[in-house]
Structures are given as C-alpha cells and as structure tokens.
C-alpha cells in the first residue's frame, strides 16, 4: 500500500467535523505545516485535542476551522504572550473550549487507547473541572472514584523525525502524548522531517514506537514543525512566532498561509 502522500492529499483525508489529536506540545514537534494546510483547505467544525497547545490551535481558531477544543492549556509563553485568536474565539462563542487538566486529556486518551469506556482518575478536590466528570464507587473498596470518559480521535496527527514509507516512525527526544494519541486514534497521519529506509529505522528500532499499521499517510516535510522546534534538528523560531502573532485580519492570514509550506 502506498502511503506516501502530499500535504494536500493527506489533509484532504480529514473531513469537516472530525476529531483530531494533535501531537507535540506547545512549540515542540507541532505538525505545523499540516495545521496550515487544514486552514488552507477551509476545514470546518473540527474537534481538536492536546494537553498544551499554542500556535496550532490558535491558527485553527483564527481560520475558523474549529468547533471544540479539548485541552489543559492554550497559550504562548512569556516571550510571546497569550494566544489571541483562541481567546477571542472562545469569548465570542465561536469555539467551545472544553477545558480539561492536561492530566484528564491524557486519561481520556488512555481510556480510548485501552478500549475501555472510562478511566478512573485521582481526586481533583474542589476544582471546578470535577463538575464535568462522573464518579463511580470503587468496587473493591468503598470510596468514590472520579472518572473521565474515553475520547476517541478520528485522527492522530503527528510530526516525527524519521518515518519509512509504511509509516514506521521514530521520535527522538520527548514523546509527549504522541504515542497514546496514536493508540487512541482510529488512524494516523504522519508528517516527517525525512522519509528513510527500513534499515535506517532498524538502527534505532527501540525508538521506532509508531508502528505503520494504523498510518494512513506519510508526508515528507522538512522543517514541517516550524515555527515550532523539532529536536535535535532545529529549535523554535521566535521570529516566525512573532510574524504569526503580528497577523491582524483574515486577508493577512490568507497571505501568510499562501506564503508558508
């Protein structure tokens, strides 16, 4: 099966209204080029999830692609400030922010990955997040146990350092939630810095933690995480983040999207 696809072809696999788990964390190993292509293709009503996001979810909000965000944190950091389009979209009720703890995002993905309908979690005391979740009685004791529901992404979209043509892929450095997303999702779209041979994967076989069998598309995009970083190849670009944050309106956004990969 030929899984090697262009950015256009791979983004076309995503249908309006589907749920996407987006790999990486904050400005590290974000599948940024894929996110921009979703915006260029004018996707609508996507449901996106991740523990901690910024560029990716902010851009999808800006481009009106998103209906619901499930995350623990959506913001840039001190150097850059908040995520302005995310904020505006939520405050204007164009996007529903299903606020979670990073931990409950992970727990919901675990339930999906484990094929069970819910996951018991630690007590969150008086956090208002508790009102979103149900408790069950521990059947082996008496205490009430908080739970979260499984959340099943249609797609996990993950940017990796190396993949072979079949989508067997290596992640170097922090894996974040990418592995559990790959397990929880129905299918996987990989963008990769480089498509390599099977032999190249075998050299680091213990780090080849994404097996190809659920991968529907492999897209080679060098620098595909930019403006985010891709360890150890390149760091995030403060200049490029600021360029994005300087965009004022939809016309400028469209220009930006056309100029970028």
């Amino acid at each position, binding site marked *: 099966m030929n899984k090697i696809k262009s950015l256009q072809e791979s983004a076309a696999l995503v249908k309006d209204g589907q749920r996407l788990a987006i790999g990486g*964390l*904050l*400005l*590290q190993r974000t599948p940024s080029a894929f996110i921009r292509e979703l915006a260029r293709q004018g996707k609508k009503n996507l449901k996106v999830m991740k*523990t*901690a996001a910024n560029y990716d979810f902010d851009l999808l909000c800006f481009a009106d692609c998103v209906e619901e965000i499930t*995350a*623990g*944190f*959506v*913001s840039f*950091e*001190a*150097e850059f400030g*908040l*995520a302005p389009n*995310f*904020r505006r979209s*939520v*405050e204007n*009720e164009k996007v529903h*922010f299903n*606020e*979670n*703890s*990073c*931990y*409950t995002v*992970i727990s919901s993905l*675990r339930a999906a990955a484990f094929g069970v309908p819910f996951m018991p*979690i*630690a*007590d*969150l*005391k*008086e*956090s*208002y*997040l508790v009102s979103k979740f149900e408790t069950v009685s521990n059947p082996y004791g008496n205490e009430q146990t908080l739970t979260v529901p499984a959340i099943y992404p249609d797609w996990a979209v993950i940017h990796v350092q190396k993949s072979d043509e079949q989508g067997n892929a290596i992640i170097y*450095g*922090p*894996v*974040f*939630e990418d592995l*559990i997303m790959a397990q929880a999702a129905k299918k996987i779209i990989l963008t990769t810095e480089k498509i390599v041979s099977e032999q190249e994967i075998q050299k680091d076989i213990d780090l080849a933690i994404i097996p190809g069998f659920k991968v529907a598309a492999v897209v080679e995009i060098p620098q595909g995480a930019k403006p985010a*970083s891709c*360890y*150890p190849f390149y*760091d*995030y670009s*403060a200049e490029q983040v600021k360029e994005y944050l300087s965009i004022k309106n939809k016309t400028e956004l469209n220009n930006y999207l056309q100029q970028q990969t």
Partner: protein
Amino acid sequence: MSQNSNLEFTPAEYMIASMARILKDAENAFMGVASNLPFFAIWLAKQLYNPELTWLNIPGKINPLPTKPPKSTVDFQLLKSSSASITLANIFDMSARGELDVAFLSGVQIDKFGNFNLSHIPDGDKIKIQFTGGAGSALICATTKRVIFWRTKHDKRAFVDKCAVNTATGNVYKVVSPLCVFSKKDGVLNLESINPDSSFEEVSNNTGFPISNAPFTEGPTEDELKLIRDFDKEGIRDIEF
C-alpha cells in the same frame, strides 16, 4: 534597596531565592508549563542547597544540566545532559500516587483559601475573559504534597478574596510574589515574610484579603545572587517583569 542588607536585588531575584530555599529538604520538584522563575529556583537549589533534588519538567528529561537558562517550557536547554527520561503522563501519575513532593504553579487569581483560577472570568453562563487553562494544575494541586504558588504581579486583581472559578485547589504550601511570601495555615493564606524592599503597607494595599504583619524575608544572599547572575547573563529571569 534592601533594608536588611547592603545587597541590591531585583524582584525576580527575591522570588528565585525565596523559592529555592523552600526546596532545601525536597525530594523532587516539578515545574510545569511557562515556569520561568521556578526554573531558576530549582536550578539554584540544586547548585547551592540540595544537589540530590530530582528535577522534573514537561519535556521529561530528568535533572538536565542547561548551559544557560531556557526561554520556554520546551527549550532545548532542558534536554541537555539529563540523567533519565520520563513521560509527562508518568509525572502526573507520580503526583496521583503521592510521590511528587513539590510543584510550582501559577495563575491569574489566587484567593485567601489558596484556590486559584487559571480558567476564565465568567459572565453568567458565558465566558467574559478566557485565560490559558490550568494545564496540569488541577491534578497537581490536589495530589502533590507541597504546592508553591508563584506570581510575578502582586495586586488586588491577582490576590483576591474569592476566585471567580477554582481551577485548582488543595495542597498549597506557600505563595511567593515579588512583595512577600505567604504560607497556608488552618486553610487560609497567612503572610509569612515580606520582601525587605517592600513593606507591610504595600503588601496589604495590594492584597484583596485581610492579612497580619510579618517579619522581613531574608533577602537573597551574596552566594545566591552570584550564581544567578553568572548563569543568567541575558536577564531571562526578568522576562515577566
């Protein structure tokens, strides 16, 4: 300038030193997203007070040896020369199991009960102002043994009588601001010590709940300041001030 010593120091340096000292007897310490000052505090504590402290962070490379301060949660400096790997999920699991000793959290509002709000300001059923979301704080605050709340701005919008929304509540141990250190006792925040460059009056005027007077904090020592300044030549510690 400090009233208690002849050393000059910045608010950032005051906060870093105050937080580092809390780590003297800690087994491990976790810093989450957007944790500029906690980075310096942990780094300083490991240099000066507690070399065996286990340092956990979001990228999950344990006890890295950065050659200069990181600018973000995911800076490559946090991946340098570390001693082992752990996933973020497994750090949360540690906290859930009660194995996480100290964690640093920040937020937009904190109230007299030590609750904090990183979620939003509601307007009825709607959201008036959306903040960043609490990241891992709801879990961490509920299950990590000692939570240190830090905030670079101390005013009545931040230190409130009651949070609009409780994003995270639980095991708050101390609160460190540019003006002072609070500790939680009998379920409420009590002023523990005051920045020698500040005063009870300044703290009181900028705090939205009643407090009682307290002694001055010992300002940053010469050793502390030298280490911080030699390491942070670019002034990254001041990025949020």
